[in-house]
């Protein structure tokens, strides 16, 4: 039997929720929500769980991830109980609960921990460069035929191909760390939502049948477009595609991306890079301005982790742009140092944000939709069998 925990509200408030205790359980939020449908009703039910402190019910709910924070609920809430922000806080809380290391919670509730961890990883990256990949003192021969900087030839005694391989090795190490934590957290999420679900047992064949959900929703964020203001979705999609392209280029096909010669602008390496940079930069500007001005419910409340995310993303983009133009401009040492700083920001951002913080939603959202469709289809099957 579930136990009421009055103190649970305080725990959720650590993750950002403004006061939600005013809720009088009228159901307006759920009724106006364009995303709540059928059995997956929210936010009221989740708010109720939080008020009563029903931790297990919250942890086994996929609903927080089905919410895209259109803000209609908070806007029309008769008690101004901020159901939208409550759902946002639950996502942070769940991220910390899926994470078995306990780091996620530390990063969310303490700025010192999060900034400290970022600084720590940054320092490691800079240290590695300082120890093993110091730039040559002789800049001769670092300019290529196009007049730009040869980005892979900085280190004396290391061939360009070897340099790319070293960086690629670093990328893969980072990706391995990130994947290890993220996948183990995903497994935790799967246990909580699907396996410990007391209502239904999901037959194996449904996992295959419903798998399309995962790819479709990862690629499109289709549900997000159901919000009244479709620009939220459009901007998010721009960032998502931009980032996925960028991530693929720097991790999966680095030798193709980080070349000695400077390709013409018509080369996909360049225009894909420009597309990604444009999308990410536009989103950073719009989101930052909206958060400062507090326009729309979704930007009204900003948790420290939101700012850290935006600032890190901005610095990564900015240093990336600088590296690019320093390279084209033939500025040898600025290219090298900015490149090191770029990596010293990018690495901690991915290692901290993806498995432990805001960026984990890249996996949790499509997975929650997938798990929900598993449970709902299994329930439908059971209903049919009973007939």
């Amino acid at each position: 039997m579930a136990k009421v925990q009055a103190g649970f509200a305080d725990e959720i408030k650590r993750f950002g929720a403004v006061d939600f205790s005013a809720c009088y359980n009228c159901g307006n939020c759920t009724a106006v929500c364009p995303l709540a449908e059928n059995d997956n009703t929210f936010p009221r039910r989740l708010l109720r769980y939080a008020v009563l402190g029903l931790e297990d019910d919250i942890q086994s709910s996929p609903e927080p991830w089905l919410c895209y924070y259109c803000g209609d609920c908070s806007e029309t809430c008769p008690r101004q109980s901020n159901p939208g922000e409550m759902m946002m806080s639950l996502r942070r809380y769940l991220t910390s609960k899926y994470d078995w290391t306990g780091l996620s919670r530390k990063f969310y509730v303490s700025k010192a921990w999060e900034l400290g961890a970022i600084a720590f990883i940054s320092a490691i990256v800079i240290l590695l460069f300082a120890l093993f990949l110091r730039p040559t003192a002789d800049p001769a021969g670092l300019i290529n035929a196009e007049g730009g900087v040869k980005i892979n030839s900085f280190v004396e005694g290391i061939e360009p191909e070897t340099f790319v391989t070293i960086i690629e090795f670093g990328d893969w190490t980072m990706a391995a760390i990130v994947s290890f934590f993220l996948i183990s957290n995903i497994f935790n999420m799967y246990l909580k939502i699907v396996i410990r679900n007391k209502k239904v047992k999901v037959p194996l064949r449904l996992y295959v049948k419903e798998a399309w959900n995962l790819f479709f929703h990862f690629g499109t964020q289709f549900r997000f477009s159901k919000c009244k203001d479709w620009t939220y979705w459009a901007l998010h999609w721009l960032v998502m595609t931009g980032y996925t392209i960028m991530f693929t280029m720097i991790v999966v096909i680095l030798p193709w991306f980080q070349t000695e010669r400077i390709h013409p602008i018509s080369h996909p390496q360049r225009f894909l890079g420009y597309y990604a940079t444009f999308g990410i930069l536009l989103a950073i500007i719009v989101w930052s301005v909206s958060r400062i001005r507090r326009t729309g419910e979704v930007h009204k409340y900003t948790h420290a982790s939101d700012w850290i995310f935006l600032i890190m993303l901005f610095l990564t983009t900015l240093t990336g742009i600088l590296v690019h133009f320093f390279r084209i401009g033939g500025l040898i040492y600025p290219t090298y140092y900015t490149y090191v700083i770029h990596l010293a920001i990018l690495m901690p951002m991915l290692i901290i944000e993806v498995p432990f913080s805001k960026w984990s939603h890249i996996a949790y959202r499509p997975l929650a939709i997938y798990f929900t469709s598993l449970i709902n289809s299994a329930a439908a099957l059971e209903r049919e069998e009973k007939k």
Partner: protein
Amino acid sequence: MGMDPDRSKYDVIVIGGGIAGQESALNLADSGLSVLLVEKDVSIGGKMIHLSKVFPTLDCAACITTPKMSETARHPNITISTDSEIVDIEKNPDNSFSGVLIKHPRYVVENDCTGCQDCEDACPVIVDDQYQYGFVGRKAAYVPFSIANPRIATIDIENCILCGACERACAADAIDFTQKIERTGVTAGSVIIATGFNLFDPAVIERYGGGGFRNVITSMQMERQLVPTRPFNNVLRPGDGKMPDNIAYVLCTGSRDETVGNPICSQVCCMYSIKQGQLLLGSLPMADVTIYYLHIRAFGKGFEEFYQQSKGMGVEFVKGKVGTIEQKENGDLIVRYEDMREGRVKEAEHDLVVLAVGMLANPEAETLFMGGKLEIDEYGYVKQVDRLRNPAKTNIEGVFVAGTASGPMDIPDSIVSAGAAASESLSYLKRAR
């Protein structure tokens, strides 16, 4: 009408001629005090005179109010000034109150008009009838409503085209277009504020159609459809005149809602909706009535039984605030809500939706006194400074508050409140003398 020899000196000024104002005025007048009753409308009666029945007894509202209105109008100690307002009230050094009574021109000589309605027949201008809440039209020269008091004509000069047809039709020669605003200084020993409440205007709620849906009406409009003096001879939906057979009530429209700036309960909507539900089952025996509620507040004597009775009669109760209303092409409405028992979001179709609108403070009370000296509470009502011991007391000694001017309440409570205001005013005057 009560004729005081000095038309400018009274014992008490009662502001507002609704049920509370009348009750206060009658109590004081019966004790031998002279009362000036100031009413801004062209008839006394307030909101109650337009209601169908009262809860939970189902007594006819007009049958209770009309005799009271007549008694007030005929009382020798009461002077009624309709179509009037009082402004710039001030407390004098001798503790008396003085103010300026502004009487707006009615363009009809009150003592000459017989209420024959010949002017109404002659008038060519038709506009919305505010006393039928826009369901039907009325003329620009008109008797406000059949049980008005005084039951005499008035001319709506805003819409009048000055054709003179009424003047020619009037056998009593009572039409007088030369009337002007009259300002008189009045003084009294005490003031009772009974300015009542305003109904919430649901047009501000976009997701309920913003006032644009043909078959979404307010509870006051439904009230008009259920009275004997109703606009149509039956309950009809205004969009196309179809007799509705699936009616929804949306409770807490504009009450307990921070987004419209009214966080408090209006105290009457649950009960009047339950009452209307019962009356509808009587007038439309084949109709379904569904009440969407947040919490049913049946707190008064006999209220819970009345609620249970409506359930027994077949009124459907669904727990959940209506989130959105959408209009279909045929004028039917789709209501979206969360069914909390089943944990599902549902949509239901209705052919008439009644918004159970709440009470809002009447902001006019605030401007009665010079320099805004009257204290108002956080919800905009007249502040009861000593609510538990002297519920009618305001921050100005000698000024008392009656009825819904002090907060949302039902009719019996308004009358109790008005009685309290009258007796507190009376004892104040005795003490002062």
